[in-house]
Each structure stands twice: as C-alpha cells, then as structure tokens.
C-alpha cells in the first residue's frame, strides 16, 4: 500500500523531472541550430510534446475508430455499413438514442434555469448567506457520479409493500397513504430516466450558478438604473436588460452541459445499467465493448456521437475566433 503511494510520488517527481530535461534538450537542440532556424523551430519544439499527447490520444484514435466502425466485432474483416444499419434498425438502440435525446433536451435547459434562479436569488441575500447557499449548491460538483449513486440510492430505494421504506421518496408517499413505487423501474413516460436526470441536475446546477452569478454581477448598474427610471418593473428588467447581457454565459453553460449530457455514462451504469429502458449511448458503448466484445458496434456508436458533436465544435471555434478578434 505504502509502496504504491511512494511509487506514485516518485512517478510525479520523475515525470516532471523528465519533462524538464526533455524541454531543456529541445531548447538546446534549437539553440545549436543557426540563428534563423533557432527562432523558427523553437515554438514548434515547445508545443511538440503536448501535441504528441493530443495526436496519440485523440486525433489518431478518432481516425482509427472510424476505420473500426466499418469492420467486424474483432476488427478482422470489413463489413461495410453493417454496424450502422444493424444499430439503427434495432429497436433497443432506437430507444437508447431517444433516451439520449431526451437527456439532451431536458438537462441543459433545466441546468441553466435552476442555475440562473440560484444566481439571481442568492445575489440578493447578505454575503454570509449568499456564500453558504452557493457552497451548498456547488458542493455536489466535487462528488463522483458513483458517489452520487450511493447518495441517491437512499432517495429512490424501494422495499415491497409492508416493509419499512428506507428510501426517502417512498417513505414520503407511503406516509401519504400511497403504495411504494420502484422508481427506477417505472418506464412509463420515461419517468425513470427523469429520476436519473435529477441526479445530473443536482451535480451540475452549481457549475451553472457559478458562471451565471459572475455574469449577473457583471451587468452594469447604470443599465438597470436607466430601465428603472423608464418605469420598467423587475420582471421586465430581468428579461429585457439582464438576460440579453448575460446571454453569452447562458450559451456557455448550455453548451458545456450539453456536451456532458451527450456522453453521460456513470449515472446510468451505476443506477440501472440501462435496464427498464433507461439506456443511453454512453452506456450502450460500454456494453458493446465489454459485454458483447463488439469493437465494430462500439466504434460505430462513437462515430455517431462524434458526428453529433461536430456542430458544437464548429460553434466553439467560431465563438473563440469572434472573442479573440474582439479582445
């Protein structure tokens, strides 16, 4: 045990030390070159190691994944579009896609709304209460989704009728005289998916609140004052003066949460493993890879996910360029 920690600490030391030596060597290498080449090549030497990591862990695998998606389960023979057609035609994968879209439709929007509500309302409390309440809402960000699973297990726990309920939600409704419900098994109206979404909302709202709170505090006082002098009520001021000025941050929160939701895995894996029609593509990917040992299907799912992120990527890049040109 102690050995492992020691080993980790040594790795940190050796890893950082090796990086220093590597850059020192790269730097020396640039310096022995004739003057003109030194200045020309040095920047590339500085970014080379970082780019090597990016290329090996993201760029090359992306290409390779596309290739695998046209091959069979063991990646030994080409199968053309079979992986895609089989996936898209199977009704269980269609349900999986639908669930994922449902998560994408609900969670980012709710995250923005709840985060904005907290940001605006906590802003009006005195500083002590503002900080305390924000810390409470923010805290779940530090908790893993597995940890969140242990927390929410106590909310959704189900015991058959007649036994004492230890899940909070069932305790409340049995106290009100209803029968206990196995919440995560109720797939009518995808109710169980919504219960899982609650967990992500619980974890993500703090992030939304922090970003939007910074934006709301940055709204210039004189614009609010001007609206007040014009006789606008608080609601009009909020929607017509505050919201347009924080719109950039709203979009940032929305996009970030959207990306997170598209690749959601842990919550579903830990709580239901996709059972009772709660499957999402992250979990389906994992099951194809590790339960079915089907590299082809797993790769095809990733390619679909990648295609879905391209519009977001384009948006990110354009947004970044616009902000850079303004700066």
């Amino acid at each position, binding site marked *: 045990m102690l050995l492992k920690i020691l080993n980790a600490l040594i790795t940190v030391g050796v890893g950082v030390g090796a990086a220093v030596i590597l850059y020192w060597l790269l730097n020396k290498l640039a310096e022995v070159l004739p003057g003109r080449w030194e200045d020309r090549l040095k920047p590339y030497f500085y970014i080379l190691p970082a780019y090597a990591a990016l290329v090996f*862990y993201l760029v090359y695998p992306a290409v390779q994944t596309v290739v695998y998606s046209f091959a069979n389960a063991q990646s030994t023979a080409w199968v053309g579009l079979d992986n895609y057609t089989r996936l898209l035609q199977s009704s269980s994968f269609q349900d999986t896609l639908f669930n994922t879209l449902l998560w994408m439709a609900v969670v980012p929007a709710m995250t923005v709304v709840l985060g904005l509500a907290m940001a605006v309302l906590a802003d009006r409390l005195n500083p002590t209460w503002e900080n305390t309440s924000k810390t409470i809402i923010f*805290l779940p960000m530090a908790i893993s989704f597995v940890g969140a699973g242990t927390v929410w297990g106590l909310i959704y726990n189900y015991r058959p009728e007649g036994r004492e309920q230890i899940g909070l939600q069932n305790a409340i409704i049995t106290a009100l005289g209803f029968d206990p419900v196995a919440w995560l098994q109720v797939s009518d109206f995808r109710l169980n998916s919504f219960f899982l979404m609650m967990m992500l909302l619980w974890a993500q709202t703090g992030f939304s609140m922090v970003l939007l709170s910074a934006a709301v505090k940055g709204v210039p006082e004189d614009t609010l004052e001007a609206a007040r002098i014009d006789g606008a009520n608080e609601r009009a001021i909020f929607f017509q003066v505050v919201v347009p000025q924080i719109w950039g941050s709203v979009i940032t929160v929305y996009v970030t949460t959207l990306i997170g939701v598209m690749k959601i895995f842990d919550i579903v894996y830990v709580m239901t493993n996709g059972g009772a029609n709660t499957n999402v593509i992250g979990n389906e990917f994992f099951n194809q890879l590790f339960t079915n040992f089907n590299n082809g299907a797993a790769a095809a799912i990733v390619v679909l996910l990648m295609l879905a992120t391209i519009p977001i990527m384009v948006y990110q890049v354009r947004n970044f360029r616009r902000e850079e040109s303004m700066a």
Partner: protein
Amino acid sequence: MTSTQTTMGAATPTTKTRKRQPSREGQPQKAGWFARIVVFILCFLWIVPVIGLFLTSFRPRDDANESGWWTLFWTPSAWSRMSFDNYETAIDQGGLGQAFVNSLAITLPATFIPILVAAFAAYAFAFMEFPGRNFLFLAVVSLLVVPNYIAFVPILRIYGDLQIAGTFPAVWLAHIGFGMSLAIYILRNYMATLPRSVIESAKIDGASHFQTFFRLVLPMSLPALAAFAIFQFLWVWNDLLVALIFVGPGDNAPITVALRNNLMGQAGSGQHLITAGGFLSMVLPIAVFLVMQRFFVRGLTAGAVKG
C-alpha cells in the same frame, strides 16, 4: 515582480472580457421573502441527500437497512448505536482502503505531469510568433469538445499489444492525453492576460525564452496552474469510465470502480456499507474542493469546457 502582483489577482482571461463595471453592491432590491424561501428550499433539497448518506454510514446494519435515517430524529436511542464499524468493514473487506490508495496513485501523476507540458505549449501560443499558430490553437479549441470515447477502442488495442492494460502507467498516460487540450486552453488564455511589457523587458535584458518561461511566466501563471490542477484532480479522482476501460476491477482498481463493483454491485452488501463506501470516496475531493474553491471558480470562469 511587484508590477505583476495585481494581474495575479485578476482572474478572468481574455476570452471572457466583459466590461467589469462596479459590482452591484448595495442592491436596490433587498432580498424579499420569495428569494429567501426559494434559496432555502433549493439548499435544503441539495443538502438533505448528503446528510442522509452521512448519517446512514454510521448506523449498524439492521438499523440502516430496516429503517430510514430520518427516524434518528425521533428515536434518540438509535444514535448511541452509531459507530465507525461500517467504515472498518468497507475499508478491509470491501477493499476500499486499497482502492483509496490506488486512486491516489492514479490521480497524483495524472494531475501534475501534464501541467508543465501544457505550460510550455501555452507559452509558445501566447508569446511566440510562428506560422500555423492560430490554426494549431484552434485545433486545441476544437479538441476540447471531442468526447474521449473516440480513444477507447484503438488505445485499448494498443495497450493490449503492449501488455500494459490494467497498469497505472496505462491510465496515467490516458488521463494526461485527455486533459491536455483543457490544460493548454486554460493556461494559454491566462498567459495571454499577463502584461506583455514584463516579457518584452525580460527579452531586452537578454533572457532566453527558456529563462523567461521558468523565471517569469510559470510563477506568474500560478493561479491558472492551480485552477487546472484542481480540475484535473477532481476529474481523475471521480472518473469511472476511463478507469473501467483501462484499469478494470482488481488490485489496481481506483475507489470509484471498487465502490461500484465490491459494494454497490453486490446484493448482499447493504446500505450501511454502501453509504460508508460512498462517503469514503468523496471525502478527499470535497476537502480539496472546499479548500481550493476560489481557484476552482476561477478555472470555471476561464471558460473550461471539457469533452
């Protein structure tokens, strides 16, 4: 260095340049009852599940599995039965002690090694002119949103060929690769806000890029380094998917995997052990988070998006 002190305090890098007006202190609208009640209800809903977990984790097996934790509030006698027994069982029999150590062994190198590598690249992007700079940085920006799922199938295959699947280096390197774009992005954005005059004058004094980086830029970028370190720490510690794929269950499994496989996945383990394990898994990240919250918020507002 005194001239740089002020910039170190100022947080948000250029990408988020919003006109910093005087903040709205001395609100005209004071907190009404509505605001107070809504905030109170939200905070209550957010914290109650955690309190439930915390209390349950100390209750003996029969209490925890046959009565709700809230019954503690009207059965004072149950408090006296609470103990650390669940934690002992979870750590020894549940294997969470070993897993906690594994998590540390995975997280520390995966957090600290990428920092210097990313900082050098960020320095080049922020302070050096070279053909292709914009294009290469835009590539980093677009890689931010690429889901790491794309890496799993091919990398797993390579790890299989190299026979390093299931080892610590396998997962260190993966996390370093996945965290790199975010690290470059945060650090470069921060470095772009550092006063250029300081770097220019260092150059005039004859300092090389190498010296400027280590003596000036790296120390001045400390807030951004800390912001990324916290991000990466929380991300790696709380990660389940990368660990399942590249380490899997067994002797090297981190706490998320062990908690899922040894306790939550076993029908017999019961809420008393699951909650104790759950709390063990969140103690360290919560502590780091509470202590370093300021830096973490700074990282968030630096426009951190991770794919």
